């Protein structure tokens, strides 16, 4: 081993120890290691089994579930559980898991890989399996657009990797074209599917390969479904593992994989089902028996934090956590609201688009299907936060009766209004970056 590599490992471990004591972030130690030895990642000796996961949504949940399954089946797993998924964070966690000689002390390395930075990490080592879950319009102020992200992920894909792909997402599935040995997962026709596309935009309208129109037998949501190009013949691939059912009875929810394995779940959001399916597929490909994988996943309670129930004075409510700059996640939350047949009100909070940066860009609000809230069952719509004027214009053009809409520039004013005026159930839709602004005002009842 080169002296530089040894020094890098030593420095990384020391700084990591200090950073942990100070409760600081996880990318700094890796940053120093990379300064000392830029190719430190290629100096590390990884176990034979390594799995990387990327995609627009659900990377962290999927990695957590794969780790849980592998660990419950006796494997020692090293993974970036702090969710630090760029090259500095990956370096920190891999060196943290290795000996001073650079040997990673685990049976499996599991890696959450950032869509844009996977190419930098995989320039130094190639994971054996590479899971790509979905590609949506997500945080486009950083990510450009899904086709650009597809190209950039393509720079991280090498011939010696086995790809594990979502067969229902055409942009993701296009990675498997002419690639033997690719593993596919996907969903069967589900009761909640639609035959016509719902939503403001349709990223599945044209073939990602030849750009001719595509046809869908059904859509699970957004552009995820059973597609076929009318021109070049690119179509949904047969799946190795399949979501065959989603069921809910007596408050108990479960999903079925491959028609055989029933897995109890906490909530049945379709993207969550895909994450479970991706984790199931990755674990079985890695050698875990399917019944064992299903059993472990069933025992796993995802601390999603996505749903919080609360009271606000006499008003009962539920927070549905979504992601700003991600119309797909908002659309799924809106579906939850519309499905609820009670009389209900909805508060949308857009106060800080990100915790990490400022942007004025609210263009993503125009990609969300707020038109669905133009519904008799909706009592009031409350728009709150710094971007309330942008929301107000958007809702004006969504055709919602303006007498139902209230606009407030702070969450406090919006909450006061709800406490004093509402007699309907209140859904709050917002992002991680803004959730505390409402949770600090309401009384939380339980956390899922």
């Amino acid at each position, binding site marked *: 081993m080169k002296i530089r590599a040894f020094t890098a490992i030593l420095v990384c471990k020391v700084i990591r120890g200090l950073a942990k004591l100070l409760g600081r972030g996880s990318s700094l130690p890796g940053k120093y290691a990379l300064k000392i030895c830029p190719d430190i990642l290629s100096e590390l000796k990884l176990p034979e089994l390594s799995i990387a996961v990327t995609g627009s949504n659900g990377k962290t949940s999927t990695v957590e579930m794969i780790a849980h399954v592998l660990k419950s089946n006796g494997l020692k797993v090293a993974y970036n559980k702090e969710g630090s998924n760029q090259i500095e964070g990956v370096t920190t966690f891999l060196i943290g898991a290795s000996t001073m000689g650079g040997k990673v002390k685990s049976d499996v390395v599991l890696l959450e890989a950032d869509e844009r930075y996977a190419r930098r990490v995989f320039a130094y080592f190639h994971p054996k399996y590479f899971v790509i879950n979905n590609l949506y319009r997500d945080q486009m102020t950083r990510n450009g657009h899904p086709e650009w992200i597809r190209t950039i992920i393509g720079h991280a894909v090498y011939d010696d990797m086995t790809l594990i792909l979502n067969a229902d997402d055409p942009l993701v599935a296009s990675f498997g074209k002419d690639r033997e040995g690719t593993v596919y997962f996907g969903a069967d026709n589900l009761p909640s599917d639609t035959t016509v596309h719902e939503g403001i935009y349709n990223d599945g309208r044209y073939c990602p390969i030849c750009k001719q129109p595509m046809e869908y037998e059904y859509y699970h949501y957004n552009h995820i479904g059973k597609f076929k190009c009318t021109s070049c013949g690119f179509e949904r691939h047969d799946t190795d593992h399949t979501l065959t059912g989603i069921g809910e009875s007596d408050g108990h929810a479960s999903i079925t994989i491959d028609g055989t394995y029933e897995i109890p779940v906490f909530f049945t959001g379709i993207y969550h089902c895909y994450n479970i399916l991706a984790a199931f597929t990755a674990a079985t490909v890695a050698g875990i028996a399917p019944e064992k994988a299903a059993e472990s996943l069933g025992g796993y309670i995802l601390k999603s934090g996505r749903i919080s129930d609360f009271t606000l004075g006499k008003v009962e409510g539920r927070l549905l956590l979504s992601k700003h700059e991600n119309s797909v996640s908002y659309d799924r939350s809106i579906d939850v609201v519309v499905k609820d047949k009670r009389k209900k009100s909805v508060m949308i909070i857009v106060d800080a688009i990100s915790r990490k940066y400022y942007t004025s860009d609210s263009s993503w609000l125009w990609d969300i299907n707020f038109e669905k809230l133009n519904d008799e069952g909706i009592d009031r719509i409350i728009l709150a936060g710094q971007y309330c*004027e942008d929301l107000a214009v958007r809702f004006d053009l969504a055709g919602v009766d303006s007498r139902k809409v209230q606009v407030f520039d702070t969450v406090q004013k919006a909450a006061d209004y709800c406490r004093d005026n509402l007699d309907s159930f209140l859904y709050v839709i917002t992002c991680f970056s803004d959730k505390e602004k409402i949770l600090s005002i309401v009384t939380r009842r339980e956390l899922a």
Partner: protein
Amino acid sequence: MNVNILYLYPDFMSLYGDNGNIRILERRLKDQGFDVEIIKRTITDDVISFDGMDFVYMGSGFESNRNLVAAHLANFKDGLVRAIDDGVPMLFTGNSYDILGDRIETADKTVIKGLGIFDFSFIEQIEKRYTGDVVLEDWENHELYVGFVNRAGVPHGKDGLAFEITKVIGNVPFEKDGVRKNNLLGISLIGPLLLKNPKIAESFVRIICGRKGAEYKEISYPNSEKSHDKTKKALLNAEV
């Protein structure tokens, strides 16, 4: 009175909530008392006619889509040029205005021929996106416009460009942007820029009213005004 809006490639160049511009304009025209018809034409259509159109719009798309649009729209260039010369108001946002220029050099060094209506070119790369909040100054009237840029290329041929980028928060490595000709406006801003720049929306509506022989009614749009003021203040005060 009827107003016809030609919405170009709405399902092919539809990236950043650009549909908002059409909807905001439609709303304002209806407020003026017009009946609005939106005519959609896309990449699979054999004919795109500009005859009888009162407004033309195109938004951003994947670079690969835009390149195909450049070739497709070239078939209907004569009609487009006639409409521009005739003073039909038009708005091209994001990377859709690239095709009005001379050429686009893509990341793999392919040269895409533009429509040649303006003498500028774009040079693109794949490694990073040029994204950021910007404030632009209109040289003609010194108005400040605000919004977001999200593209792969930088413009060259700066003499003809209509706006100076006076503030950038992010990575937008060019100082000039946008084109004007008669009532056509092409600009790199993405998304519903007519929301955050009510002056641009108003000027289009005034032009349409004038061309239709209708009197423009003063109507205020306080949410749009507030959004503009708030954004401008935030961007001008932001530390870079």
